[in-house]
């Protein structure tokens, strides 16, 4: 009789321990610990990545890329007053929230080592150098073809084909192909 009591007590104790373990694990955050800075960077990265993805989906990013440096550029890093759809997205999402960013357009140029151009959200040339090391980064690529029209005005109007535009920032990387160049748009945000 006493043996049965001990057995029952042992089983009950085991159940209590297992149940406590289950409740304990479900009550705590099992994710890795993050400092406040890491959480802030992660949030910025998500916003930057979402903004670029959305701009790519709607075509605003393509228009901005095909517009940059063509004629009188409207994509110019202004914090306010831009009429370019992509820059308005950046203004609304980041400038108005007190965030700053640099935008880098990387492309292929076999004839030169200059394969990147930068656009800053502040009207200071030093901003590129000022960006902190813990900034968030997001990238998206835009593929350009020879017969794609350059974008003019507020980047929604169509101009001549890219391959016929003088002074466009990216050269024809594949002259024997329909592919004109691939531009990687990198948004560095802090």
């Amino acid at each position, binding site marked *: 009789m006493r*043996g049965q009591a001990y057995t029952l007590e042992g089983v009950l104790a085991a159940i209590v321990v*297992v149940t406590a373990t289950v409740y304990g*694990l479900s009550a705590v955050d099992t994710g890795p610990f993050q400092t406040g800075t890491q959480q802030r960077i992660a949030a910025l*990265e998500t916003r930057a990545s979402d903004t670029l993805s959305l701009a790519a989906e709607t075509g605003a990013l393509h228009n901005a890329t095909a517009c940059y440096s063509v004629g009188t550029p409207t994509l110019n890093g202004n914090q306010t007053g831009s009429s370019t759809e992509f820059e308005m997205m950046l203004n609304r999402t980041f400038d108005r929230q007190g965030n700053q960013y640099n935008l880098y357009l990387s492309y*292929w140029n076999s004839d030169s080592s200059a394969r990147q151009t930068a656009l800053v959200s502040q009207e200071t040339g030093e901003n590129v150098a000022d960006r902190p090391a813990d900034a968030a980064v997001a990238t998206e690529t835009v593929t350009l073809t020879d017969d794609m029209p350059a974008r003019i005005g507020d980047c929604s109007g169509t101009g001549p084909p890219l391959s016929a535009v003088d002074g466009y920032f990216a050269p024809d990387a*594949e002259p024997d*192909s329909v*592919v004109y160049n691939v531009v*990687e748009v990198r948004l560095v945000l802090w």
Partner: protein
Amino acid sequence: MVASERGQLLLIGGIAVAIVVFSTILFAHSLAVTDGITTTGSADTIERSADREASVERDLGVLAARTRGDDLDGFEERYENALRNYTRTHNRVVASSGGTYLNATLNESASLGNVTKQPSTDKFLEPSGGGGASWDIATDVAPVVIFNITVDDVDGTGNPTTIVVENGTDDWTMTLDGTPPGTQKEILVNGVSRCSGSGTARINLLDGTCEIAGSSGTFPIFTDELEGPYDITVEHGAQSDVRYRFAAVGDFPDSNYGPTDIGPYPVVPAVDTTYDTPSASYNRTVRVEVDDG
């Protein structure tokens, strides 16, 4: 306590301890798995992979549209060439930022679509010769990427040749009429005259344009009027002499076509892609949504 009771107690106690230890191991393992998949780095890797794939698939669609254009012939070769140049430039650009190695090749066997054509003037009948009253070019069709008809002559007597596009609830018709018979033609869409004149009629059913002897007209296209998929039928095809090209995804009835009358054509191209990143390496075959935008 007798010896048998003590032994029983020790046995049950041992089992209870074993259950606790085993359960703890299980929970610890699930904790490790949960920790692994909820790590910020892992979540970022998954999200970036999804973004990268979406971006590449958009580019593949743009390239397909640009290389296809209005020229049916040689699309596969042009697209293959564009994919080679695209991946080379893509890899050069993203490599400088520690990115991804990408390879993309056209997978013709996994692509969807067929093409049929009548390159020299003949009656608008089944390629196998039948279908005088009516015959199906294809059924359950969507999408259509090429549908051009060149009308050289119409009979002008009896019922005129009519192309009927149906989706189960509504229909769209194009009538190839002509009086007197011969080169005099009139193209009617849903009963409304859109082009007329004397000479060869060139009709693009997807652009909604027709042209006879330099005089052109436009008409509403079936893809705007009806939702797919479509059944496309030719009625009274013996009344006209035509050349045509038709490429689409759909069912091309075996009874209407011989083995050489239809061929594969990548209306919806499939592309084998390889992604090689610092954190993951994998292959995917994707069907490309051709983007004309």
